[in-house]
């Protein structure tokens, strides 16, 4: 029998081992210990605004339905008929009264309750116990500012409040870009990417401050010449932050007030000021940041990014574009155009990242070079007033952050 893997040794503070990105056994452990037993992102409330609305997604490999029942309650249901195992819903999103399996007509409510089966007289008394045949529900479902998280198989060992404690101020800044504090997710576009590499490559890559001027040289060229982006990226007073429980933040830019006025104009600034007060409005508009909510979710600029592990070396990433409620259409048009420029498969930025991720996937088969270094800025890391680890934005504090939680979840369960 294999001895258990020592995840403290494989995921060190300043480096990770390539087997974490290639080994099917590691992948299996990650699904069981992280994806199925801790808080993972499943949906945003705006994707299912009305009773009867649903979307389908995945928690790890498990197909799930996120539904809103007639009382308005959100459920996360395993999309697997309890009879013979077909998914009971085949579409990405929609509106239904119930979910009916196409094989034998087993019908489940929006809350997962088994309502009926076809030709029930064929069952003898005692052969079918409806109370035990409801769709499997996630053990916990909770949301913060419309962002819905679930824990599939077990009560998480931390509350969602604890999980988000170090990062919720950034979520609040993101949502307060809208005067009513609400966004729409995915209505304005979803781009769907695959790369031949492990899911953690995208976790690290969503808050990558170091690569930006290299990988994105062509995008930076346009941003500096045409979009008022500062030419001295490395000298910007920006940070990478370990926000706890694997979550982390990369500050992307911070505009001086004069630049905020030039960029957003008096009309929009006044609109936000009326809603949130002057200082809050300005703070929302000054700061831009990427953040990762470990393990499968990131928020960047104008997108929700959802990371789906499919195989140890195959990952799907979806970028759900976000728009603001309560703003003039032109503001959302700008969010559309700016997102298009940098993200999506034909853009000036994102495709270069996915090519690099593919190349990392290939490189991780070189077993004679087993370490992936994440030590940039390790020796100069400090802590802020909230006790969060902080480094420079081109250093790697934010990418080391997920592995503290990784070790905690992987080692604890393996013990």
């Amino acid at each position, binding site marked *: 029998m294999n001895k258990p893997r020592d995840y403290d040794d494989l995921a060190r503070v300043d480096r990770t081992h390539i087997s974490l990105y290639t080994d099917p056994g590691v992948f299996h452990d990650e699904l069981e210990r992280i994806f199925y037993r801790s808080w993972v992102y499943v949906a945003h409330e705006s994707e299912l605004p009305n009773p009867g609305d649903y979307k389908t997604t995945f928690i790890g490999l498990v197909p799930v339905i996120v539904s809103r029942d007639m009382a308005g309650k959100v459920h996360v249901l395993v999309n697997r008929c309890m009879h013979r195992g077909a998914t009971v819903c085949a579409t990405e999103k929609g509106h239904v009264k119930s979910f009916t399996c196409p094989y034998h007509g087993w019908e489940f409510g929006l809350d997962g309750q088994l309502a009926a089966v076809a030709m029930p007289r064929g069952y003898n008394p005692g052969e079918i116990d409806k109370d035990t045949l409801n769709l499997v529900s996630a053990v916990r479902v909770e949301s913060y500012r419309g962002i819905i998280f679930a824990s599939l198989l077990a009560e998480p060992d931390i509350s969602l409040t604890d999980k988000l404690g170090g990062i919720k101020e950034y979520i609040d800044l993101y949502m307060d870009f809208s005067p009513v504090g609400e966004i729409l997710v995915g209505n304005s*576009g979803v*781009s769907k990417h695959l790369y031949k590499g492990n899911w953690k490559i995208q976790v690290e890559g969503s808050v990558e401050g170091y690569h930006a001027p290299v990988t994105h040289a*062509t995008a930076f060229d346009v941003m500096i010449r045409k979009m008022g982006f500062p030419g001295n990226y490395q000298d910007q007073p920006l940070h990478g932050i370990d926000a706890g429980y694997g979550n982390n933040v990369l500050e992307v830019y911070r505009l001086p007030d004069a630049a905020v006025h030039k960029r957003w104009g008096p009309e929009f600034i006044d609109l936000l000021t009326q809603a949130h007060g002057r200082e809050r409005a300005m703070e929302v508009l000054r700061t831009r940041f990427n953040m990762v909510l470990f393990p499968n979710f990131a928020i960047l600029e104008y997108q929700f990014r959802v990371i789906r592990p499919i195989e140890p070396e195959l990952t799907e990433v979806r970028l759900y574009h976000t728009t603001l409620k309560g703003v003039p259409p032109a503001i959302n048009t700008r969010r559309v155009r700016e997102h298009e420029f940098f993200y*999506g498969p034909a853009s000036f930025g994102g*495709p*270069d990242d996915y*090519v690099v991720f593919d190349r990392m996937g290939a490189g991780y088969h070189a077993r004679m070079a087993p370490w992936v270094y994440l030590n940039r800025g390790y020796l100069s890391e400090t802590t802020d007033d909230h006790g969060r680890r902080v480094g420079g934005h081109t250093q790697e504090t934010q990418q080391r952050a997920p592995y503290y939680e990784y070790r905690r979840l992987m080692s604890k369960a393996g013990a």
Partner: protein
Amino acid sequence: MSMDRNAVEAFLIEEARLIDEKRWREWQKLFSTDALYWIPSNRLDADPLQHVSFVYDDMELLNERLIRLESEFCFAQAAPSSTLHQISNIAIAPGEQDGEIAVRSNQVIYEIKNNSQRRLEPLNVFPAFCEHILRRADNGVWQMRYKKVGLLNCDAEITNLTFLL
């Protein structure tokens, strides 16, 4: 003089040939200065002002796209794509409106990245409903005022669309 069917076909064939032969700057000249080059994503009927597109280029942004492709730093094009456009089902809207001709065609764009170390690169296929609006410039030359490439798989997984369609 308007454009007859032969002339329209010849225009579309030449336009595709310039892309397939990577004569991008000659291709660029086929567009009028006020043109739009549009590749919608998710839905072909989405409002491009409120919905993300793959490409929504005015001629300034298209020029930047070509600068990117010509540079050595467009890593998504290492190895570079080669394409082949197959054009069929050409339909010309009856009559000329304000000196413009609207043309629909079906195009199948094949794409492959040759010279890739990884090898086993797939041959990608992008079937598309294309729309061109052609307009005669002052010097009598026909130009594209609008080119829309409506991909059949616009809602599917597409990771790299950094070549020209």
